[in-house]
């Protein structure tokens, strides 16, 4: 435990832990010292000098070492001749801090004036106007007239694209380096830097492509002026016109807490639309950050022109038809659920299926969820608490692409002293922060994991760890492979289950995959065979769009009922279509990969002619003579809690609870934490540990391909052509073409160079792709991105046919 220090700030006594910075101590007693360069998530740099205050310390007699006393017996305080920065000084016993004195105020005012002298003062057209720390402070303390010659201001470029997502206005930049430091210290992508020096200092990027980081959007939140703006929101709206709607990002298993900013717009008939996504603080999940996929792609599908909707009569008719088909099917009903559905949707769909004795499966190619459900993280766990003595193992996962905020959290844990072991068949961005990097050949995953408990440093880091968290993913693997890896990984932690901060985490491909497993729904491993001659009810799943083979298989079903938010290849071939709602239009809960259940709130009114999935399921059930809760997701959760042991303690009320979080964000002083939102709507709750012994299966090794065969393995790219991603206009450049990566040696064998268009053939079907190089990929292996129009669910032999561009449908 750190020692407690007592000091006085503006006549208020404060007790804080040793090592606390004066600025933070002040914050804790409600004294807001203005800052620009300081950010509570980063080490102080003392550059902007905005936080100048008077600091005095008790005087000590040099000879005796005794405190010098005033006449009244109080300790004599010696003030420094110069003002000091509150952000770089740590507290000490008996310190006296004065922030409101004339001298301190004058110092702050002088700095503010200098900052403004080269600032364009274009607040009326600035995106930050209305939520700008510089603007706010100026209104409060600044003078309304400049003593400087406006014409002599330094003029600089405005609207410079740093990358395809972020723009900089050089005139507005105040050189606080928050963006640069965030990228370097927090994101670990040091792709922003200062160029030149002195008054010519500019923020630049030399990465290819520009500002090459999936965390770039966060820099716009912590930029204390309007220098950095996103392509998504620039000139989109004025901050004061916006309302805040809390939600959970639906793009990956991390479950970042977000706030959607909404406003009424004429172009949508006066209805509310989402204008941007910002992080909402949850220090145990995403802190105050989010990734660019969640920010720039996470919600646009709400407004997609391909949204499905039905008028009331159609809806009723289609429900009736679906009901009839399901009744007629009896046990020949196959329900296939996508993993972006909420727990409530899944529960109702599962109940409906059980009611008619059909079969329910999830649409996924990743296994091991029985294990994560029983060996996963539980109450009291927090990746942010891992540090010295703890070990984190990441197997077969490229977290930077699969779950970026976990990448960031694990990097931070490693920097706090946790032992991070990254085992993968190729380089990932996390390697740089790992204590140990274990490289293996695709196919050797299980063998490798089994070998990690040897008598070496890695072995002892794993077996002797105070806490051990194991992440496994699907890099280069299909269902069987991940299932085997999960079993091997589970063996490492089987003696620790149920202990907080110990557990197995699946790096799933969807937001609620964990919820699917927790509710006992398993993936269909042989979908094509399953659907033949059956009545198939697909919810939030588009097999026809993903794979020509599955499309063919669906054609052989007896009937297809397709329920989704957007038109898909599957809805196009369905007998009956039902129009669902996006995660932004409704309530519900997701279970994150860390087994944290979190609430979605409705951000915008639902599109006309759509219903929430759980409600549709309840209506169909009703048509089949089964009564389910269809009105309120809260009531559905009550039912879940009643029957599912792990959910027993989950209630909407508890999910909405918040406890105090540090750093404080979201108050008027946006200069402190940035524009991320304070969480007032709930931090969520971990699922309980239910002792539920699972026998680990005898793991076999995934077969490897022969030496002379080139084989393709599936990998996840953050930005893909997923149903909810594709509608984001800003991303089209990034996702328009599938890029396959291979070792230059492999490429050479086929006479290929970077950027070549090739035709590859997988399972007899040809696809177009662009060639990319990656030296860390073994020769003879080609990385094929998932959800990019190429159907690949597991490692498969591939033919590289030609380097001629071929024309295939779609993009």
């Amino acid at each position: 435990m750190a020692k407690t220090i007592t000091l006085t700030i503006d006549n208020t006594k404060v007790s804080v832990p040793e090592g606390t910075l004066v600025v933070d101590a002040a914050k804790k007693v409600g004294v807001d010292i203005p800052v620009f360069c300081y950010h509570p998530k980063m080490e102080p740099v003392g550059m902007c000098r905005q936080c100048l205050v008077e600091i005095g310390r008790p005087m000590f007699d040099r000879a005796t070492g005794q405190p010098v006393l005033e006449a009244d017996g109080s300790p004599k305080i010696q003030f420094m001749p110069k003002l000091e920065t509150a952000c770089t000084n740590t507290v000490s016993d008996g310190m006296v801090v004065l922030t409101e004195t004339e001298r301190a105020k004058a110092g702050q005012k002088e700095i503010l004036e200098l900052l403004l002298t080269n600032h364009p003062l274009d607040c009326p057209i600035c995106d930050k106007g209305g939520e700008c720390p510089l603007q706010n402070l100026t209104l409060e303390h600044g003078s309304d007239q400049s003593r400087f010659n406006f014409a002599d201001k330094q003029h600089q470029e405005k609207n410079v694209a740093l990358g395809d997502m972020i723009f900089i206005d050089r005139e507005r930049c105040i050189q606080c380096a928050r963006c640069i430091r965030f990228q370097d210290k927090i994101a670990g992508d040091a792709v922003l830097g200062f160029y030149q020096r002195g008054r010519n200092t500019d923020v630049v990027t030399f990465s290819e492509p520009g500002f090459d980081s999936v965390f770039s959007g966060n820099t716009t939140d912590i930029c204390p002026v309007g220098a950095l703006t996103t392509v998504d929101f620039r000139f989109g709206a004025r901050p004061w016109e916006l309302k805040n709607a809390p939600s959970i990002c639906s793009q990956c298993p991390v479950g970042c807490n977000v706030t959607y900013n909404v406003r009424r717009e004429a172009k949508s008939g006066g209805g509310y639309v989402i204008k941007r996504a910002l992080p909402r603080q949850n220090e145990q999940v995403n802190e105050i950050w989010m990734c660019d996929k969640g920010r720039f792609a996470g919600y646009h599908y709400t407004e997609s022109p391909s949204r499905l909707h039905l008028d009331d009569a159609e809806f009723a008719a289609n429900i009736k038809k679906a009901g009839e088909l399901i009744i007629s099917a009896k046990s020949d009903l196959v329900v296939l659920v996508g993993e972006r559905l909420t727990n409530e949707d899944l529960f109702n769909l599962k109940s409906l299926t059980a009611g008619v004795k059909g079969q329910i499966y999830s649409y996924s190619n990743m296994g091991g969820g029985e294990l994560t459900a029983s060996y996963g993280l539980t109450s009291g766990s927090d990746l942010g608490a891992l540090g010295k003595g703890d070990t984190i193992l990441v197997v077969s996962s490229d977290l930077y692409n699969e779950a970026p905020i976990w990448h960031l959290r694990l990097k931070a844990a490693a920097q706090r002293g946790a032992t991070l072991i990254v085992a993968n068949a190729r380089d990932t961005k996390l390697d740089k922060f790992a204590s140990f990097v274990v490289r293996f050949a695709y196919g050797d995953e299980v063998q490798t994991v089994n070998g990690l408990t040897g008598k070496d440093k890695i072995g002892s880091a794993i077996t002797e760890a105070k806490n051990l968290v194991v992440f496994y993913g699907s890099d280069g693997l299909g269902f069987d492979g991940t299932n085997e890896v999960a079993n091997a990984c589970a063996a490492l932690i089987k003696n620790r289950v149920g202990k907080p901060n110990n557990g197995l985490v699946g790096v799933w491909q969807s937001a609620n995959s964990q919820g699917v497993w927790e509710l006992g729904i398993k993936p269909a491993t042989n979908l094509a065979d399953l659907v033949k001659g059956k009545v198939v009810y697909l919810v939030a799943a588009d097999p026809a769009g993903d794979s020509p083979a599955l499309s063919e298989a669906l054609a052989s079903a007896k009937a297809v009922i397709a329920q989704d938010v957007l038109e898909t290849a599957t809805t196009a071939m369905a007998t009956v279509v039902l129009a669902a709602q996006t995660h932004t239009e409704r309530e519900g809960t997701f279970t994150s990969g860390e087994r944290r259940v979190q609430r979605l709130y409705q951000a915008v009114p639902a599109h006309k002619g759509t219903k929430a999935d759980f409600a549709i399921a309840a209506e169909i059930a009703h048509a089949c003579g089964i009564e389910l809760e269809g009105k309120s997701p809260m009531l559905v959760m009550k039912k879940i809690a009643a029957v599912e042991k792990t959910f027993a303690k989950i209630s909407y009320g508890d999910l909405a609870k918040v406890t105090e979080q540090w750093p404080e964000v979201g108050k008027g002083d946006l200069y402190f934490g940035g524009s991320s939102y304070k969480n007032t709507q709930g931090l969520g709750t971990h699922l309980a540990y239910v002792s539920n012994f699972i026998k680990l299966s005898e793991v076999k090794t995934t077969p490897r391909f022969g030496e002379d065969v080139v084989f393709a393995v599936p990998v996840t790219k953050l930005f893909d052509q997923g149903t909810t991603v594709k509608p984001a206009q800003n991303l089209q450049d990034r996702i328009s073409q599938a890029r396959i990566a291979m070792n230059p040696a492999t490429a050479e064998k086929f006479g290929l160079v970077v950027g070549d268009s090739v035709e590859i053939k997988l399972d007899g079907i040809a696809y177009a792709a662009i060639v990319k190089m990656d030296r860390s990929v073994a020769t003879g292996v080609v990385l094929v991105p998932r959800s990019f129009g190429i159907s690949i669910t597991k490692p498969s032999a591939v033919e590289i046919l030609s380097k001629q561009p071929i024309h295939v449908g779609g993009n």
Partner: protein
Amino acid sequence: MEHFLLRHLDIADINDINIYKQNGGFESLKKAVTIMQPQQVTDEVKASGLRGRGGAGFPTGVKWSFLPNNIWPHYVVCNADESEPGTFKDREIMERNPFQFLEGVALACYAVGANEGYIYLRGEFLHVQEYLDKCIGEMEAAGALGEKLFGTSYNLKLKTHLGAGAYICGEETALLESIEGKRGQPRVRPPFPAVVGLYGKPTVINNVETLTNLPFIVEKGAAWYRTLGTEKSPGVKVISLSGNVNKPGNYELQLGTTFRELIYTHGGGIPDGRKVKGIMPAGASSSIIRVDDSTFDTVMDTPMDYENVQNIGSLLGSASVIIIDDSHDMDWVINKTVHFFKHESCGKCTPCRDGNYWMLNIVERIHEGHGSQKDLTLLKSVANQVNGKCLCALGDFSTMAVSSALERFPEDFDKKVKA
């Protein structure tokens, strides 16, 4: 008088390692390493009262004793950035008396238990780097550097590192950043380099001239050293004399020598029968001392030491004395100094970065004859706005000439804004 630092003036070939050895070279180092404890070396230097010659005048031995003894390794870094306008003494020492300088670096290393020392040279000193590398090689061959010095278990490696054109790298923490391969921008203090320095380890940073004093102090002792200079400013100082004097150059004098002796005896007086108008005793960073008929004798009789120069409203700093004669106007002078500081401001902190931008803007306007009385007031106020609020001393330095010129030479400015 015998020279202790500019010894090449007495022994022309002192830069030949053999000549250096014949004249007692490396004896101090040998004595220290073989028969003295590191602490004894530190104590001797402390007792000598040697103060840092890089500008701040901080007692050298005291600085060394701040290094914690439970964190290792320790480093010694020699500041050979020498970029203050008007300073060119370290260059002459390194070019002409390199072995004494390197012996001094080695002594400092031994005193603080460092096995590695860095010499950070300004980028323009490429020729000095190449020369020192050669000298280091010769010392290694002679057993005065390298493994097992003088048969003891003490190993020492010296390395030179070349900057690339940035005055701020003379600031000690910026210098460390630069060696670490980063932009040369000052660090926040505390922690001080003595605790968290180069590569995060305890580090001593000393100026070239400071270190060059060490062989004599170790050889002849603190008591001897204190016979030179004044009580509070003991020893000798190499003064770089430049500007409007007949014989500019480096002069090694005892601390406490008067300006008169420096300028008129050694410097040969002012050319063309002109008068001294201003003195900048610490390069471009100085407050300008006004010299006119009424102050002439007081200024000229002022002893140049850390205390007395302060008494006449300036600082001794690195003793880079720039003489300005009465043919120059002070608006021109500060136009030059502000130009320098604006160019060299690293840009890390607001007051220095933006303050110098505006100071230059206003000074230029005044100098070009477009200024007004209001500009003078504004200039004064901006200088105050910058002073005392910056991350490092460069910001303060940039205001010294400006504030003092406005205050002490008002007629030059009044003339300009009226015209």
